Every structure is written in C-alpha cells, then in structure tokens.
C-alpha cells in the first residue's frame, strides 16, 4: 500500500501527542505566524495562498485566496474572520479530530487568515454538540493568549487578533455561511439572500470571511513550506494539497485518512480503509457527504479531486465517503437521508420546506409498500422544482439522494411498488410528518 506524507494529521499521528501548546511549538508550531507577522505584507500572504491553489474544504471548494481577495481594499471599519466548525454534513467527522487533537494548528491558521484580511476579531462557530471540542479550543486560546500569540500587540508588531469560541445549538443549516452569520448574530439560522456576499456585508454587515477548519489548518504549512510545495501535491492545477477523507459505512477500517487529492476511490476504500467489512461486495458509495449524489462500483476508479468527481455526476463536497455493501436497500438509504434533510430544512423557502415534507411522505409510502408507479414521476417532478429554487444550496443537496438512487437503482423502487400492487395495498397512508 502506498503511503503518503501526512500534513494536517502529522502531529497527532506521533505517539503520545496531546496537542498542548508546548508540544505544538516543539513540532515547529507558531513559526509561520512569527515568520509572517509584520515581515510579509497581508497582500503577499493572500498572494501565496492564491498561488498554492488551496480550495475550501467545507464542501463548495471555492479558492481560498480568491475569497479573501473579494474583501474591499479601502474599507476602514472592522472586518471579521469566522471559522466554520459547524461540522454537520452526514458522513463527515474530520474537523472534530482536527479540533480535539491539534487545536493550535487551527489557531495558527486563523491568525494567518486574520492577518491577511486585516481582521482584529474572529469567531470559531463550533457545532453545539462538540462540547469537548469547544472546551479544548477555549483552553488552547487561553494558553496562546498567555504566550502572546493571541490578543493585543502580538510580537510587539502592534497587531491585534482576538479569537473567541461561539457554540451553535444543533442546526445543520448553520454550516451554510450566511446562516452561520445570522446564528452568530443571535438570530434564527436562516440563510441570507445573496448578493450581497459576506465579503462585503457579512457579520454585523461588515466585510467577513468564513473558512472551514481544515482550510484554515492548511495555512501554517503553506506559509512555512511555500506555495510551490503545496501546489505540487495532489492533482494540480485545480485540486492541490491533501484532504482528510472520512470513510464510514460498511468498510473494515472506517476513519479519517489524509491522502493527496487525485488518488482513486478504489485506493481509498480498499487500501486505506481496508476494504469491505465482510465478503459482501460494494454496492454503492457517497463520495462527499450526504449532499453528494450516490455513485456505483463503476465509479471506483474515479479520482478524488473536485473536477473528476463532478464529471462523474457527483461532488467531492466535504470529503465524507460512505460505503454501502451488497444487500443495502437503496430506497431505504435515500429515505434516511431525506428524513435528515426534512428535519434540518430551516423553513425559509417554500420549495424546500414543503417539498422536503412531501418527499419524505412519498418515500415512506414506497418503503412501506403502499406506493404506486405515479409516485416515481411525482418524486422526480418535486425534486426538479426544489433544486435551484431556494436561497441556499440546501435545495440542491436534499434532492440528490433521491434523484441519484432513482437513476442507478430505479428497479428497487419499482420492485417495492410491484409488491404493493401484488398485495393490493395501494391506499393512502396516514400522513406521517413527525420528525
């Protein structure tokens, strides 16, 4: 099995590494910020990040340096950085590990980002369930503050950067960047209509950058080892660097594996994650979290980079790879994900709010062998009227499990409906909309 040099997980893979400030410093931690602060101009830091090709690790894959570049140059008031640690895409559990095992790596990344965009205040919006993660971060910030890395006049350069932890309270939608900002402002987490974008009107209507944990954690390494080094890893020019892929489901060794982008799903699943957990063959996999359309064994040789997965009809998303073995009921699987989206729809846009409840009702009917052939058309029609008609990308995400399973495993839907017809059971189910 080929081995790859870990970057983000390098420290925590050392035996006994606890992630304390002293240990982080011993492994070369906080050298990047020392090297940069007051010595390299913020514009040059942005240029390095742009040149490295780093793209957002949260799901959308937007180039990080370009995102920073959208901030108005001449704006005099405060600017903000928000770290998106609201990891809640089903199938994804990398940020939790990055936070709990090496919190200072994230903090140093935040300091670099704050310096580059000229932010004096930053918030880590962490999902409410990560109580331990929030405690670890708070302790790490306290230690970093005592050591002079966070706070006023860092290294005597007159630069002020403060970091606070803000806990969410259990809402998937708050991982959407504008919903995150609303939530951070103490409101319901409803996504905002864009434009204007957060780069100009973000937190408290001020220029704001929202970056994912893994994106920020890459920054110290890019600034230390250079843009060329980073751009040479992975699948250049468009998918550079490594990614921490989260493998879950029916594999022998589920978990987080950091590999360069561009290796194949076959290698990730069969070599890194040890293959299937039993002799049952692979039937389906989700390549990038619950929002990504399902793929089949025919797609195992697709490369794990943004473009290749998009070309295969899905998306690399948050890097959560979920594997399903032969015998998994695909209609049931799609219903499970649909129930998730129904529960998490924020209720702002009618197509998503109403549509998700209808989709769940129809899917439950089919799974309970009460469906009819016309239901399949209704499903497709509903999905087409949700995707692209909502304020945020949630609408596109919620239809992907149904549309992709209908595409690849339509016969399973048909079999369930035939069973219903054979038993003459077609009659309206009591409407079940309970979450």
């Amino acid at each position, binding site marked *: 099995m080929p081995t790859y040099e870990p970057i983000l997980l390098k420290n925590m893979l050392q035996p006994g590494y606890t992630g304390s400030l002293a240990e982080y410093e011993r492994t070369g931690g906080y050298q990047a910020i020392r090297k940069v602060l007051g010595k390299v101009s913020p514009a040059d830091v942005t240029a390095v990040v742009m040149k490295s090709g780093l793209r957002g690790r949260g799901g959308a894959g937007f180039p990080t340096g370009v995102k920073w570049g959208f901030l108005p140059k001449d704006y005099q008031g405060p600017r903000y950085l928000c770290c998106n640690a609201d990891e809640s895409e089903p199938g994804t*559990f990398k*940020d939790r590990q990055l936070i709990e095992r090496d919190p200072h790596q994230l903090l140093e990344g935040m300091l670099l980002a704050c310096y580059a965009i000229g932010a004096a205040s930053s918030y880590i919006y962490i*999902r409410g369930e990560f109580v331990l993660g929030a405690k670890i971060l708070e302790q790490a910030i306290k230690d970093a503050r005592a050591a002079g890395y966070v706070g006023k006049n860092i290294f005597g350069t007159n630069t002020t950067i403060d970091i606070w932890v803000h806990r969410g309270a*259990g809402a998937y939608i708050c991982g959407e960047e504008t919903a995150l900002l609303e939530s951070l402002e103490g409101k319901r987490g409803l996504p905002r209509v864009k434009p204007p974008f957060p780069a100009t009107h973000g937190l408290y209507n001020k220029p704001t950058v929202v970056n994912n944990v893994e994106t920020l954690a890459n920054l110290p390494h890019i600034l230390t080892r250079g843009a060329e080094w980073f751009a040479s890893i992975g699948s250049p020019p468009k998918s550079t660097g490594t990614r921490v892929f989260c493998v879950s489901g029916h594999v022998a060794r589920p978990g*987080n594996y950091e590999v360069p982008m561009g290796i194949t799903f076959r290698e990730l699943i069969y070599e890194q994650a040890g293959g299937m957990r039993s002799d049952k063959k692979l039937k389906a996999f989700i390549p990038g979290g*619950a929002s990504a359309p399902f793929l089949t064994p025919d797609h195992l040789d697709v490369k794990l980079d943004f473009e290749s997965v998009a070309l295969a009809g899905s998306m690399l998303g948050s890097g959560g790879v*979920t594997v399903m073995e032969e015998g998994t009921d695909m209609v049931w699987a799609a219903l499970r994900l649909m*129930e998730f989206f129904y529960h998490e729809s924020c209720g702002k846009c009618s197509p998503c709010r109403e549509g998700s409840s209808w989709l769940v009702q129809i899917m439950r009917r089919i799974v309970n062998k009460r469906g009819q052939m016309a239901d399949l058309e209704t499903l497709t029609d509903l999905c087409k009227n949700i995707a692209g008609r909502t304020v945020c990308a949630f609408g596109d995400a919620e239809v992907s499990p149904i549309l992709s399973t209908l595409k690849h495993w339509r016969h399973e839907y048909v079999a369930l409906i035939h069973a219903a017809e054979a038993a003459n059971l077609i009659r309206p189910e009591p409407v079940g909309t309970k979450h």
Partner: protein
Amino acid sequence: MLQETHKAEIDDILSRYPVKRSALLPLLYLAQREQGYVTEAAMQEIAGILRLTPPQVYETATFYTMLNLKPVGKFHLQVCKSLMCALVGSDTVIGWIGAKLGIKPGETTPDKLFTLSVVECLAACGTGPMMQVNDDYYERLTEEKLDRILAELRQTGTSSLKTGPFMWPEPAAAKAGA
C-alpha cells in the same frame, strides 16, 4: 435570577461581541445549564439583559434543537439515526435502550433519570453506532457497552466509556518511558 448569580460570567460573555444580541445563544446555554432547560422566566430575563423583546428571544430559542424548552431527564440519551449510523446498527441501539429502560423516543423514565431522543448526524460517522449523553459522546456502541454505560450513569453520574479527544483510527500509543 441569572444576573445576580452569574454576573461575572454574563459580563465576560457580553464582552466578546460588539453587538449584544450575539450573546443570546451563550446566555440561553447558561440558563439551560442552571435549570436543565430554558424556562420562560429565563428567556424574559435574557431579553432584558440584551435589550430584546421576549419574542425575539423565543424565536431564536425555538429554532435550535439543543435548547430544551421542556424539562428532560437527568441523562439525555441522544442516539444518532442518520444513514451512516443506521448502516452499522443505530436502530438496534434504539431498540436496546427502549427495552432496557421501557421508554420510546421522546419519553422520559418515571424516575426522571433518562430521556431518550433520536437525533440526526452528530459527526461521529466512522465510529457508529453512537450516542451523546448530556455533554459526552459514546461511540462504537455494543449491547455490553450500553449496559455498562447505563449502570455507571446510575451509580456515579458519569461513565468511563465516554470518548474523546477524538481520533480514528486510534493513534499509536506512546512508547513506555518515552
């Protein structure tokens, strides 16, 4: 009254934000920590502290699933049922808990010790089936583990089987003497 009992903490929270309303979620958490759930009186008081109307507090509080507006048991068992956990047996775990405690999802045991909730993804998909009990995660659940967790919770109020700081696959152990 929170303002009398937790003045320093409230001041500290308020100092982090340039706009007061941002302190709403942290203050609701504080209220929930003290009473086990968010009472109407607490919401009224928080509205006063942040210069908001009570409906503004209520509209926010009702949006977030982690804020309990009704009392819950001393131990809030929250089992993840999203697809990734369901693939590795979360429905079985819910069944075990139901059989052992005699409660269905959404119910509390008569002694007010345990409340069972079925929740969506808690970001521990590689180590499912899993559940969260109050602040702690319990992962890779088996029936044997579940029995131990419930017994320890009853006896000591916590359990040694809680997990984290999280890393999976598990890191290599430190060499003895290193």
